[in-house]
């Protein structure tokens, strides 16, 4: 493989926050040299790309993406999801086990990894189910699944509701150093709920989902973490009360981390407007005060990672009355553009945002990506943080079109995406001098 030099870039290492002009030399799929300030030694026959002083940083790592393969290929395949990811600057995606069949055994992990190797252009890492068939009853084979390549365990859209099952799973996972990612939602409290409980839901005549559906499950889980000492990751929190619960757990030194969906960072329940089903999500969009709280928590480091919660749905599951429509929104391709809103509004420094999008998830998974360091995989993204555009869902690479950001004005996009040194996405906006 010939060497590649990305020169004249504004480098930002999300792992350290170091920022400055420089160049990166890529050889054999890895970062071979980083020249801060100066030009690196350029091997002969190397390809050069002038980055025009745009931002060059580690590719995004998305801990929560639903892919329809196997079982719902009409919504999304590993190929289409990875193309969407690449276009969005995401170089690693963790796919959820809510497939058909469920990813709850080593052979299915193996299948996904082989399909991804053959069809996907970004790194796909499967998360396996915590319980067999996502039924919430019997543990899966954490050890064997990890050996097969599962990077984390989650029941995806469902929470493990049985406290005894959760306790045993946490206890057993500890022995294998496995990461459990829980969808924190108490289903009985959700009931028939379809959006955030409160004045807005009452006015729309829709049944609400109280914040307590989230906090009750979160508090219970944290008690179990205290009991078992196991690692625990709350997949997505959505409200101010949850932030305080996680903050306290961290202060107490518990091995607890948590994520937030980009949707809860930049949208609120008002975006549902008159029954927009593309904004029907789980956890639901909350109030503006809750949105502020999660943004602040991300700034404070209480929230560790931002996820896209990418969940492709087709017309048949979305073009329905609100209460009858499926939950979920596309997210992986708009993750970067949507998250950059927080930078443009001055709510968050760029370095902090990128840490939550790449360095922190890498750390959680124990991967060597997510940093600009010699020897690290050349999973990189060149970002024009300012380029303005109106999102057109028809142009999205995903097989489904349920984007809550359709027709939204966004600023910032991936110009080039590299996975293992290979260019997997080049934006039409990007014109290199090289």
């Amino acid at each position, binding site marked *: 493989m010939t060497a590649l030099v990305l020169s004249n870039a504004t480098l930002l290492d999300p792992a350290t926050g170091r920022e400055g002009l420089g160049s990166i030399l890529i050889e054999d799929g890895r970062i071979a040299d980083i020249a801060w300030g100066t030009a690196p030694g350029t091997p002969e026959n190397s390809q050069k790309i002038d980055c025009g002083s745009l931002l060059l940083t580690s590719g995004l790592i998305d801990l929560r993406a639903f892919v329809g393969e196997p079982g719902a290929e009409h919504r999304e395949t590993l190929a289409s999801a990875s193309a969407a990811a690449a276009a969005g600057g995401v170089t690693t995606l963790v796919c959820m086990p809510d497939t058909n069949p469920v990813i709850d055994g080593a052979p299915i992990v193996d299948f996904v990894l082989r399909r991804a190797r053959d069809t996907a252009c970004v790194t796909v890492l499967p998360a396996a189910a915590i319980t067999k068939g996502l039924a919430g009853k019997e543990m899966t084979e954490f050890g064997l699944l990890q050996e097969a390549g599962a990077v984390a365990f989650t029941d995806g859209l469902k929470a493990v509701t049985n406290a005894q099952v959760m306790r045993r799973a946490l206890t057993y996972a500890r022995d294998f150093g496995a990461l459990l990612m829980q969808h924190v939602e108490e289903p009985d409290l959700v009931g028939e709920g379809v959006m955030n409980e409160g004045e807005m*839901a*009452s006015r729309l005549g829709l*049944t609400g989902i109280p914040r307590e559906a989230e906090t009750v499950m979160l508090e219970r889980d944290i008690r179990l973490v205290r009991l078992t000492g196991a690692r625990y990751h709350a997949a997505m929190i959505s409200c101010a009360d949850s932030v305080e619960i996680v903050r306290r757990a961290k202060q107490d030194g518990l091995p607890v981390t948590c994520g937030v969906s980009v949707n809860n960072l930049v949208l*609120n329940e*008002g975006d549902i407007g008159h029954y927009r089903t593309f904004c029907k999500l789980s956890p639901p969009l909350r109030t503006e005060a809750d949105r502020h709280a999660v943004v602040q928590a991300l700034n404070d480091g209480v929230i560790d990672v931002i996820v896209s919660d990418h969940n492709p749905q087709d017309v048949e599951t979305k073009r*329905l*009355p609100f209460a009858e429509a499926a939950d979920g929104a596309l997210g992986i391709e708009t993750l970067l553009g949507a998250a950059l809103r927080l930078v443009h*509004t001055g709510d968050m420094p760029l370095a902090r945002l990128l840490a939550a999008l790449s360095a922190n998830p890498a750390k959680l998974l124990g991967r060597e990506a997510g940093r600009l360091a010699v020897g690290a995989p050349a999973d990189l993204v060149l970002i024009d943080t300012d380029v303005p555009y109106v999102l057109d869902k028809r142009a999205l690479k995903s097989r489904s079109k349920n984007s809550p950001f359709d027709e939204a004005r966004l600023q910032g996009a991936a110009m080039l995406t590299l996975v293992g040194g290979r260019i997997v996405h080049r934006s039409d906006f990007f014109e290199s001098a090289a």
Partner: protein
Amino acid sequence: MRALPPRSPLNIASTPVMTAASAPTRFPHRHLLGIEGLSRLDIEALLDQSEAAVALSRQVEKKRTTLRGRTQINLFFEPSTRTQSSFELAGKRLGADVMNMSVASSSVKKGETLIDTAATLNAMRPDIIVVRHHAAGAVHLLARKVDCSVVNAGDGAHEHPTQALLDGLTIRRNKGRIEGLRVAICGDVLHSRVARSNIILLQALGARVRVIGPSTLLPTGIERFGVEVFTDMRKGLDGCDIVMMLRLQRERMNGSFVPSVKEYFRYYGLDADKLALAAPDALVMHPGPMNRGVEISSEIADGAQSLIREQVEMGVAVRMAVLEVLATHLPNG
């Protein structure tokens, strides 16, 4: 931290129509999807128009030709006897060809049918579609898929605008005004589209609205609707001019929202004893169908203070008025 610009989603219930430069239209909406989004003037214009329809309906010759040649489809995804027949009669008195379609929601794949049915019906070129659906927002969804005017005859727990209009008309005719009246809306407010539409309408017309019910049957954030909230019916009824009872669905009576019918009637059923706490000339209303002995005693339902039967009469008049004003927006109308 700077906030994203606030978004207000709730003021687009009806689509305003730009009229030609000449005559200003009295009712500037193409659909009637809710009371939300109507101005006080819109509401009063509808009530005034309804008065004329009341007079017409009391004549021997009850027919007008306003909707002659027009097609009205009543599309009911939820069973309803009185609302559907009320709309049917209203349409027929105005000379429209009325077609009733009842779609039992159990026998169809939900939702998919809504869009498909909308497209199918639209192809038949109706002028007005009257829709009832069990899901909030379903009528808005349908209105976006058809070319004709749409009237919401009840969508989930969201709105039931013609019920609120007929209630407003009934109150105005009996009290001579709505402004300043104290109105209590009692019972299952949580699941009630009638309550939501009435709160908005009565407040727009200047009434002081109270809601009364057990907390399990009150929506979260109801106090932010600008109403007074009471969980003790005896306190809530004090001095009220209008007592509006709501229907309690059978499946909510036994343990899920309230413990039992017996207990519900004891604390939230309207009987002579409790009604005595309201103003001496208080009037009693109920959107029907009533559960006698659950939310209201027979004695009160059939008593001198009851307006319940008059509400039914006003229902036809209000629906005629709604169809008439929407007809002014129809092509060549």
